[in-house]
């Protein structure tokens, strides 16, 4: 972990920490802590996120998620409360996004397409796959889920103001910048590096961005077709919950444009925009209107 504490400004001592987990860099900036408290908080966050990474990692043969993927085709697998809750949330998001967010995206195609791939039994806390070839991947869910948990922990620790960054694509704010009414986060222009394409103002809220990755590679899979989504725009979602922002931005990017407004109707209190960056540096911003 990289840890830095500065009390050069005695009114607002600031803590910075960063570590690597879930295949990305996680960063925290928080004010109002002593060095000891800041370090303690950063260490506890790192431990929690890494434990979560293990539980949800389908590539780790010893993880609960891997056990499900290995056995749930042939039997109903009992899982712990946290994993069951996560799967229930994923199922709710699958329905809420018309299937454009689906943790079964990695599954093999069937003759019936990509409909329901797994069944949850709330009484027994079990999961059972509906057909052979299903594999669950919580990668698109885990970052948002972990970011929610980190925000909770930072609040409980008594942070005045904090900003948490999960790999640049998901950002959550507690309070505001000590010298402003919000945290001002610039979304980078995709064609002109280092240039701001859009400013997002966060105050006790979160944002998430989906699109090609930062090297310009298409990487998000359309759960309905099983193919890579080849959109050149960015989809930005803002709202209260970091988890909802993360899920929604992924689903909206995967969904056809006509479908995006339909999805947004399910998520009151969240705003979504499409950002088109052009070679010359100009940008076009289109709001995804849930009233359409």
């Amino acid at each position, binding site marked *: 972990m990289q840890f830095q504490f500065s009390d050069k400004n005695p009114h607002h001592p600031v803590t*910075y920490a*960063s570590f690597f987990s879930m295949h*990305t860099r996680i960063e925290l900036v928080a004010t109002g802590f002593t060095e000891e408290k800041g370090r303690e908080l950063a260490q506890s966050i790192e431990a929690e996120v890494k434990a979560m990474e293990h539980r949800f990692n389908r590539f780790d043969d010893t993880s609960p998620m891997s056990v499900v993927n290995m056995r749930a085709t042939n039997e109903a697998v009992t899982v712990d409360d946290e994993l069951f809750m996560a799967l229930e949330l994923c199922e709710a998001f699958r329905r809420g996004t018309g299937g454009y967010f689906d943790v079964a995206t990695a599954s093999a195609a069937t003759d019936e397409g990509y409909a329901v791939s797994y069944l949850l039994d709330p009484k027994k806390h079990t999961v059972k796959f509906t057909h052979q070839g299903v594999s669950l991947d919580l990668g698109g869910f885990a970052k948002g889920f972990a970011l929610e948990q980190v925000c909770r922990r930072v609040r409980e620790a008594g942070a005045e103001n904090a900003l948490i960054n999960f790999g*640049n694509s998901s950002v959550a704010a507690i309070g505001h910048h*000590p010298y402003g009414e919000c945290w*001002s986060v*610039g979304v980078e222009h995709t064609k002109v590096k280092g240039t701001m394409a859009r400013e997002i103002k966060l105050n006790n809220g979160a944002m998430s961005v989906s699109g090609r990755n930062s*090297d310009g590679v298409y990487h998000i899979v359309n759960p309905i077709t099983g193919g890579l989504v080849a959109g050149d725009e960015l989809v930005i979602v803002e709202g209260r919950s970091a988890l909802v922002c993360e899920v929604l931005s992924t689903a909206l990017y995967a969904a056809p444009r006509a479908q995006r407004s339909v999805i947004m109707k399910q998520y009151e209190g969240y705003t979504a925009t499409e950002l088109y960056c052009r070679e010359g540096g100009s940008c076009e911003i289109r709001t995804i209107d849930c009233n359409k």
Partner: protein
Amino acid sequence: MNRKEFLSDCGKMGMAGVALSLFPWLESCTEKAKQEVHGEKARIGIIGTGSRGVFHIKNLLQLQQAEVVALCDNYRPHLDDAAQYYPKAKLYEDYRQLLDDKNVQGVIIATPLYLHGRMTIDAMNAGKSVFCEKSMAFTLDEALEVYNRRKELGSVLFIGQQRLFDPKYVKAMSMIHEGVIGDVVGVRNYWYRNNDWRREVPSPELERHINWRLYREYSRGLMTELACHQLQNGSWAMGMLPEKVMGSGSLIHWNKVDKRDVYDCVTAIFTYPNGVNMTFESIISNKHFGMGEQILGSKGTIDLVTGMHYTDEPMPKGSGMHQLVEQIERGVMSNSVFAGTSWAAETGSTAPGMPIMPNVKVVTGESSVGAEADGSKELVDAFLHAVITGKQPEKVLEESYYATQFALLADKAMHENAILTLEDKYRVPYVPLGSR
């Protein structure tokens, strides 16, 4: 690169002073050592003026301490070619006559492998300082004989392992010993080319004389010509010698066009006492991957050929979160541009690396003669210094000795289809890098 540039690079690496305790053979590169031989010349004879011999001659022309006074080759066209560079040099067709020349202080031997051991011993017996191309000898016994004879005579003996003097290797090994990439967990070496490895033959009876590399009577093929350079990497990086060696070799392609009998495709595995493996692979009928030498650590990787360092936990490029700390320290607010789509470096293999030093010179390994900026000139320069001072640098010979022995042992393992260890009788004192 001249000595001044080399020293400058050493300085840029922040290793002036530090490097000498880790790499004592670089002592001749210091300003103090340079003053020691200021104005003096080493009188050199070249034995073997084929392509590699001429490569050295071209380097010697650029070195202040060099005076080539004699040339020798039993193939007249090569000797005449070399004479154009040094018209005043005496010409010999028999190396023993050159060794009798009292004006010659040191010799550079660039002859076929099977001659290295005999010529080196004869030259040392004649009181000459010796630089011999790698590999050091044709057999395990012969390499030991050379080593022991040098010890008895106290001669200066350099072997052509130029990576010892290549700044990016020196810097990389310093970083590895500082723990920058964590524990060394693997060493990968490969060398791929797609050419027949032949030299033009003016007349059929000269085939084996000129294309000696292709015949086991004179050569050990890819292991002694290529692997020997790369096998140092594991020992440098880990400070220990391999415990066992296995390998497989075959003739799969070029035997269709000539009657060679050395393998054109080899793979060898060297296992160290701590269980770490070093691999070497060479195929000369496909060049897609070129030449590679990679030290794999528990925290990252150093690519020795490109001089790049890759961490297993890379930072995203240009995160603006740090700017927030500075803003708060200064009591100001502005936006920080860092948000965007998922950071691309999702796996280590796609993460951007960092050059280990400024102005890294990359050698492709495609040339079978030699390359610019691969340490060869610095190695010869250090030899000239040793010829003048009579001082043998520490450790340099042992590194070369073991590179030869393990190249030969792997070749033996391939031909005997066996897993082999280096017998105790071949073990000479080895002080690992960094333990001085």
